[in-house]
């Protein structure tokens, strides 16, 4: 029996890219959610949390319509000469970013909130510039939130299935990720291959969650 490793690498690449994008997009968003006082804050907060409760097929279905040639985003990408996004790797990244958004934003936001106003005020009295305050004080203090967010975002993207199934098209090396490969194996009665991949996934997930607990414990201890 031969194991096809391509879906494994593709999945890792997708999860790594998604996590990176989420840290870049999610950090300012989490900062704003933690610090802002506008009424709109909780509306945005709810939108961010929405993927937690929505079935992935709902997300996938709307993405297929929105990103497709007749959808608003599809029309935009076409007019920019980028073509349409479904069935492409960048399309999957966009889907995964939305899908895993709450898993990254929420822990970072919690960490920013837990830190309170005080450290930033102290830093300001020491004449630190806003940028220095943010990168030199806020981010190091919120480190546990960043670690938790990255691990959860990465792991959650690895386990993504519904969204990819809806907008992926199962193209080897481009959109055929691990969960879809397992599904295809089961559907084609190739249960042995399915077992190898599914078993590996189980082990991987356990290790991720377990090491996250250990890490969090250690960070918390060193933080206080």
């Amino acid at each position: 029996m031969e194991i096809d490793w391509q879906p494994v690498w593709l999945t890792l690449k997708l999860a790594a890219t998604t996590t990176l994008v989420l840290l870049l997009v999610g950090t300012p968003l989490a900062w704003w959610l933690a610090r802002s006082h506008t009424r709109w804050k909780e509306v945005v907060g709810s939108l961010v949390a929405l993927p937690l409760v929505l079935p992935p097929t709902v997300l996938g279905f709307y993405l297929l319509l929105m990103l497709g040639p007749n959808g608003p985003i599809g029309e935009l990408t076409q007019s920019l000469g980028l073509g349409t996004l479904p069935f492409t790797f960048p399309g999957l990244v966009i889907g995964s970013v939305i899908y895993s958004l709450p898993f990254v934003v929420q822990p970072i936001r919690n960490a920013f909130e837990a830190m309170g106003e005080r450290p930033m005020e102290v830093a300001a009295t020491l004449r630190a510039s806003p940028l220095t305050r943010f990168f030199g004080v806020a981010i190091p203090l919120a480190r546990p939130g960043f670690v938790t967010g990255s691990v959860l975002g990465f792991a959650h993207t690895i386990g993504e299935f519904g969204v990819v199934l809806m907008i992926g098209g199962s193209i080897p090396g481009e959109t055929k990720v691990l969960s879809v490969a397992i599904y295809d194996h089961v559907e084609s009665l190739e249960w042995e291959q399915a077992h190898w991949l599914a078993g590996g996934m189980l082990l991987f997930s356990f290790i991720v969650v377990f090491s996250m607990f250990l890490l969090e414990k250690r960070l918390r201890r060193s933080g206080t």
Partner: protein
Amino acid sequence: MNNRIRLIAFALLLGLMSTQPLIAGKVRIAVAANFTAAMREIAANFEKSTKHTTVISYGSTGKLYAQIRNGAPFEVFLAADQRRPQKLEIDGLASERFTYAMGKLVLWSSDEKRETSKAALKRGDFKRVALANPKTAPYGTAAVTTMQRLGIEAALRKKWVIGDSIAQAHQFVATANAELGFIALAQIALDDSGNRWDIPQTLYDPIRQDAVLLDKGLKNPAAAAFVSFLQSPAAKVVIDKYGYATE
């Protein structure tokens, strides 16, 4: 007062019960996704003429097969192929296998301005062509055979987008994410939108869709009734109407 209410309730209950014959039963049926529309009508007719009720699960043939093998409570299985019902028969989980419908493959575009023909396929002036997974879905296999017999499989392979089932292949074309797609005639038989090319049946092997009576339904008269209803002329009229051939 209390007694009178009880009496009325009892009378109502009797009235409800008497509208159904004593033999009315329930049959659980697993149906391949491509047969969904036809099945809805057949089930409604069946329920009307026999007073039995149906509980129907739709899904891809491979998934339903895996569920049946693992103890799903289905009593009748309408597959999209012959292979899976045959396997169940060999494993002693099913009996009374018969072909209830023969599928027809079409090339479809939801855009009326797009040409759907052999020539259009050969020209290849499109970005994507959707098909169902050839490893699991018979319509996917038929699509690949068609492309092979036209000698364009290698050229088109890069443009394939694979749907989990024929329903998803249809969805990719309906949302215009794929310009063309190989789908089942049944999916658009009652819908005139877009363009379609009825692929000549010499270009693919017949898509025989078989049904079986599963072991769980052996002792259920409603299951037996449904199996015979599915082979009746009344059911065949519906099956034809939805774009299948019958024997």
